[in-house]
């Protein structure tokens, strides 16, 4: 029971961490870009931070689903989907949206390293969890097959015995 819950709890905590990094712990850069019309718009890293909050929330929700479901194969499927969410969480600040160009800005010095590390850990935890669960499911299936074969053999013997 305890060890079954560990991956789910770890994923929930890491997901919450991904939410909290851009929101509270290491916020993205606060500087606003002035537009030609005289208005201001947030910098690119702000949108990366927003996307990470959404991804973190989804990861935390996946962790809760892992806690709620019992079948190993279902939990393995959730783990694979969460690992892919973790990959998306890494791609957002690095490729898909990005951040400020200067490596000295807050987003590049703190926010992005923190979310990349957290998402990498999520990917590792989820891949290991999925592999372990898939293996245990296969083992259960083999055991069930062996059990079924034993029962059939017993039935055949039983039938022979009746004939005698």
């Amino acid at each position, binding site marked *: 029971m305890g060890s079954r819950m560990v991956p789910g709890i770890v994923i929930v905590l890491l997901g919450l961490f991904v939410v909290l990094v851009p929101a509270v712990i290491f916020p993205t850069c606060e500087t606003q870009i002035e537009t030609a019309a005289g208005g201001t718009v947030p910098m690119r890293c702000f949108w990366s931070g927003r996307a990470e909050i959404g991804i973190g929330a989804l990861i935390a929700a996946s962790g809760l689903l892992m806690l709620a479901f019992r079948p190993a194969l279902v939990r393995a499927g959730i783990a694979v989907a969460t690992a892919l969410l973790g990959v998306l969480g890494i791609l957002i600040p690095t490729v898909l949206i990005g951040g400020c160009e*200067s490596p*000295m800005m807050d987003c590049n010095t703190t926010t992005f390293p923190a979310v990349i590390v957290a998402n990498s850990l999520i990917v590792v935890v989820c891949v290991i969890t999925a592999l372990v669960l898939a293996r245990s499911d296969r083992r259960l299936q083999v055991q069930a097959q062996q059990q079924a074969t034993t029962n059939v053999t017993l039935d055949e013997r039983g039938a022979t015995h009746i004939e005698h």
Partner: protein
Amino acid sequence: MNDKPLSTLNIALLNLRRKVFRTMGLVLLAALLAFTLLAGSVLSQSLDNGLNNLSQRMGADILAVPYGYEANVQGALLRGEPSTFYFDELTTERIAAVGGVIDVSPQLYLATLDSSCCAYPVQLIGFDPQTDFAITPWVSQTLDAPLTAGQIVIGSSLSGEVGQKLEFFNKSFVIVARLEKTGMGFDTSVFMDLDSARQLAQYSKRAGGHPVADNANLISSVMVRVQDGLNTKDVANDILQSYGKDGVRVVVAEDMISDVSSSLRGLTGYILVLIAILWILTVGVLLIVTAVTINSRRREFSLFRVLGATKGKLMRLILCESSIVSLIGTVAGMLAAALVVFPFSTFISMQLGLPYLQPSLPVLALLFVLCFIISLVPACLASIYGAVRIGKLELSRTIKEAE
């Protein structure tokens, strides 16, 4: 049903799993030691590299700056803190005339408020390519000809590739070279020739005014090289005595480096003390835990002996248990240290405010191996101690006592 063979490894794993909290505590201690060891050694090695780089790249023996700006020039050089301070250009010629001075080169510092590369102030340094001896040697490999108007050299931490254009105060510059990582303020500085810097000051006047825009004869500092064999401090004193009344102050590079060196020594000292305390603590705790464990497991060991296990088998069991605990703790601690020290290196260097240059890959690999070995030593010591204790145990008496 668990159908694993009763090998030493499996018995050790079962024993560790049975005492979850004790095992977790020991793993945590080993992890803490490995974390401190790796993070501390990477940190102190990076600071050491930064200091070596600073003394190599300094170029000048003395820096002449306006009165009251001695700390600013150090901030600009060490941390790239943008500064603007000026005195008359004639100071260069005056200092060149002081006995013992062999080379002088003026520099002009401008600070931007915004630019296309960076949304934070950047230090622009104008230098004279004809007389310069501090910056040119470091870009000579990538720069074929001296820097001309409209060309810039950028620090390693600024975004932009060679051939790309960058704008400062709406004036476009072509990047012709990029400095290697120095771990100093040079990483966030932009270098251009003196005339371009003065021209830029004119442009910046429109963006908010600049003293150099009103007086083109201003410079920020004079880099001074002293004749070999002469005492740098004596020459610096001569400059101060001759031109101190004109508002000229001197920063001796040797003193600046020794200031940084003493701060670094203090920090490295703290790291070493922390590592030593943790190492001794880990050895102590592991020895105590091994002693207590062996005492409390005397009956278990006696039963193993009755079942045919040799004393060697019991020693291997103790060795296996402490090795597993140390191995898991060490790997976890080193992984955690790597996840903190490497991704957050820029943040750490900014917080320390000291020259910070991460070691090369082979040095890092060596550090990893050394930290791994040192972290495993406490487990080896505990195992040896455990083996000696088991060797001395009179297990037959234990069985009789139990009866």
